[in-house]
């Protein structure tokens, strides 16, 4: 069994962009550091930021091969620390280097404290057409405990500013199961989110990585997270509420109004291909996965000197690609098409995993119907226990 030839690596049912690439642009700067975040980021330094944007445009231009691109995503860090002119320069570079679709989805992550109406309008003018706003909670006490630089009111104002500027595709990021959060408080935040009627929302159960400062602070101050039973209830309550409000839960942590799923993020879950630009950005294309130099200054130097920016680069084995396709695909409510994925990687999935799936179906964690394997919502809540079977 060899590596599948390229033409067999076909995206199934990816209606939003058959075979097109996604571009991810990393912005590693923050105005303040949150105690729960372990993304690649550092405090803002204007000089470094200027050099960084130049490096980004160069990296994009030299990686370009004219391939179709249907999504561009500015993530971070805090991408809203970029000046509009900087965002525009990056988008121009993308346009020169790739075949950017006319209906490209162009997302930029924002924090409520950097959402002035004029800034948002200018971004939309520069080509941003989707904004993902990190509100995290609508409780000021919870926001303070998270070390966020904004209040719930500011989040509402930011949302209003984005809508006021005419953005018709807004996503809100929220966290569930915060330290010292009750089930009722969690539900109240979800209610506040629904009241704003965003087009898309991400509802994440908080994960505190082992050395997260917030973990230490929570331990010191006695902010405990609710027991598993309550955490499960928070999750189920939240998605029951978004169901009722007409959202579709299409992934473990994501809901959208019809037609408003994140085209960009679907690439990660539908075995798609994407290129990441900037320090620490990851790319996956043609069965090869690589990661850029993590350190901002080193990344900038490497680009300036025309040196390689990939720090690690690895060709994935067929088994790894299959495992990744299964565990990411099963995160989606639509699940995976057993025959299609099996054919793509030359494996009889039914023979290999049929009995495991049978057990999970009996437990109410999965469904096996219409040739697709899917997680139920209860299954999503314990998905690690299920997904670990497939890697």
């Amino acid at each position, binding site marked *: 069994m060899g590596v599948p030839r390229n033409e067999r690596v076909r995206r199934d049912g990816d209606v939003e962009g058959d075979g097109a690439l*996604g571009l*991810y642009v990393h912005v590693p700067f923050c105005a303040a550091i949150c105690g729960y975040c372990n993304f690649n980021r550092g405090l803002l330094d204007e000089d470094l930021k200027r050099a960084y944007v130049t490096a980004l445009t160069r990296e994009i231009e030299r990686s370009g091969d004219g391939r179709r691109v249907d999504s561009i995503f500015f993530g971070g860090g805090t991408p809203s620390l970029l000046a509009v002119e900087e965002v525009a320069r990056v988008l121009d570079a993308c346009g020169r280097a790739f075949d950017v679709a006319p209906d490209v989805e162009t997302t930029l992550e924002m924090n409520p404290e950097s959402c002035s109406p004029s800034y948002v309008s200018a971004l939309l003018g520069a080509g941003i057409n989707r904004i993902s706003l990190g509100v995290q909670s609508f409780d000021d006490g919870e926001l303070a405990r998270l070390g966020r630089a904004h209040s719930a009111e500011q989040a509402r104002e930011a949302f209003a500013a984005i809508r006021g500027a005419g953005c018709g595709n807004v996503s809100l990021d929220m966290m569930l199961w915060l330290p010292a959060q009750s089930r009722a408080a969690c539900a109240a935040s979800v209610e506040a989110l629904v009241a704003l009627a965003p087009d898309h929302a991400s509802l*994440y*159960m*908080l*994960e505190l990585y082992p050395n997260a400062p917030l973990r230490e602070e929570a331990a010191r101050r006695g902010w405990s997270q609710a027991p*598993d*039973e309550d*955490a*499960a209830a928070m*999750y189920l309550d939240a998605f029951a509420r978004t169901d009722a409000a007409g959202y579709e839960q299409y992934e*473990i*942590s994501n809901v959208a109004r019809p037609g408003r799923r994140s085209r960009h*993020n679907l*690439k*990660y*879950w539908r075995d798609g291909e*994407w290129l*990441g630009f900037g320090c*620490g*950005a*990851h*790319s*996956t294309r043609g069965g090869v*996965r690589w*990661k850029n130099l993590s350190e901002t200054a080193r990344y900038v130097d490497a680009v300036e000197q025309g040196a390689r920016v990939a720090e690690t680069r690895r060709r994935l084995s067929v088994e*790894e690609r299959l*495992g*990744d396709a299964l*565990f*990411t695909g099963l*995160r989606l409510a639509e699940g995976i098409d057993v025959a299609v994925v099996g054919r793509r990687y030359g494996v009889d999935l039914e023979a290999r995993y049929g009995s495991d799936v049978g*057990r999970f179906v009996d*437990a109410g*964690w999965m469904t096996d119907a219409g040739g697709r394997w899917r997680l139920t919502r209860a299954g*999503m*809540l*314990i*998905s*690690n*226990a299920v*997904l*670990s*079977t*497939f*890697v």
Partner: protein
Amino acid sequence: MHHRQIRNFSIIAHIDHGKSTLADRFLEITGALRPREMEEQVLDSMDLERERGITIKAHAVRLSYTADDGESYVLNLIDTPGHVDFSYEVTRSLAACEGALLLVDASQGVEAQTVANAYLAVDNDLEIVPVINKVDLPGAQPDETAVQIEDLIGLDPSHALLASAKEGIGAREILEAVVARVPPPAGDPEAPLRALIFDSWYDAYRGVIVLIRVVEGAVRSRMKVRLMAAAQDYEVEQVGVFAPKPSAVAQLGVGEVGFLIANVKNVAEARIGDTVTEASRPAARPLPGFQETKPMVFAGLYPVESHQYSDLREALEKLRLNDAAFFFEPETSAALGFGFRCGFLGLLHMEIVQERLEREFDMDLVTTAPGVLYRVTTIDGDVFDIDSPAKLPDAGRIARVEEPVITAMILTPADQVGGILKLCQEKRGVQKALEYHAAHRVLISYELPFNEVVLDFYDRLKTLSRGYASLDYHVSGYWESPLVKLDLLVNGDPVDALSIIVHKEMAYARGRALVSKMRQLIPRQMFEVAIQAAVGTRIIARESVKALRKNVTAKCYGGDITRKRKLLERQKEGKRRMKRVGSVEIPQEAFLAVLKVDDD
């Protein structure tokens, strides 16, 4: 070499009291090793020994020493194992000597093991030379230590030598004392050969290397010899000495210590304590003191992966080549599949075997809780030993069960006595002696059921006394007890590997503790899991592990995939290492949890 010029001695010491360091100094002084050949603590050759700071295999080193009187002597330093599991081996090593150094750490004082081994040395009529070590350390109390030596062991401390083996202080004086005070061996060189086997090990190239001490007669290469207890004859290929490197000699005569290679295939043929004699002119009687070492502690060893079964068997066979006291036979468990019931001299011996299997043979093992050998009499009058709870007959068929009893000697500072007495009572002990000695040291002697000691006695003793109490014991007999089998059920299925034999009156408390421990160890699963403890058909404790409710990775985007995959792989690996009983996955630690429960 005339035997007048020979001195055979060993060092009696508690762990960490400086035995190996002192041995190193002797090697240096006698020039047995040049400095560049000096490897710290030459006598402890196995990795494991070095890590644990204990000596497991006995060795013998021949030192050539020119004493202050200008004469040359051969000093044979015979190393002794330093743990209670190997006390029989210690007696045989001591039997090969005429003298012993009693090495005591000046800041730690005399410990139980030292007392026990010193008594063994006295029983063997050895000349004992007390040495107070580590006198250079700030906490050293040489005077108090001397008082303890007199008071606890009954030795005259006025001739005790002061030393710091680490600094090399006093080492030469000790060798002088060995020459002057340890008597030379006596024996008839013309008598039929009698040599004591005090150690043996398997060498992949040479076969079994047998360490002997010649008591009478002589042994030389090409001689046909007989091992008297084994009743087997061999032709000697080579005799030699460790100086410390092996070198062949023409013969070993009266009082000499060395090795013998005679095409012995495995160590079980050349057992410690056996007598080597000449096949054509055998001695009338073997040397006294030979015993068959019998395993006293039993546990099941199972491969985590069932396909490793034959690898495990092979590994056990290899270990057995070198360890006559180790026993194993195939065993099947409904919970754990195919494995082996293994017998050990004691808990340390068990740990050593386990670690060697994992380290040297790369085995992943599940070990069941260790137990002892019970003697069962059925109502039909049959008497047999059982080494596993699974072999205990139904209660209705049992007339009586006897359990092995140890006599324990505990040496402790006076302020810890209360807690220790309470522990011994709780463990169903019977007090034999309670003596207050000098320097606030108390010697406590108890008869205790061995299975209670195997369970967790030593750990609790150490915790209770903050490490100050020391323990020595020997198995001293059997007594009858109302013992029952306590079963553990998971979702209604008995987990045979978790059954234990307990005293009837402790069954309830132990059952409750075990069930609650299991609740902590068994991870949440797809369904609620009921955990029950039962004696016969009677359920005496119950708890449940609620069904898994939440185990989700919230974020998984482009940069996370590799990391999240690793997380899932780890989870899968953890699951793979669990044992499935019915539909319940049980982690390996659970099978040893029986050991870690507190009854109170």
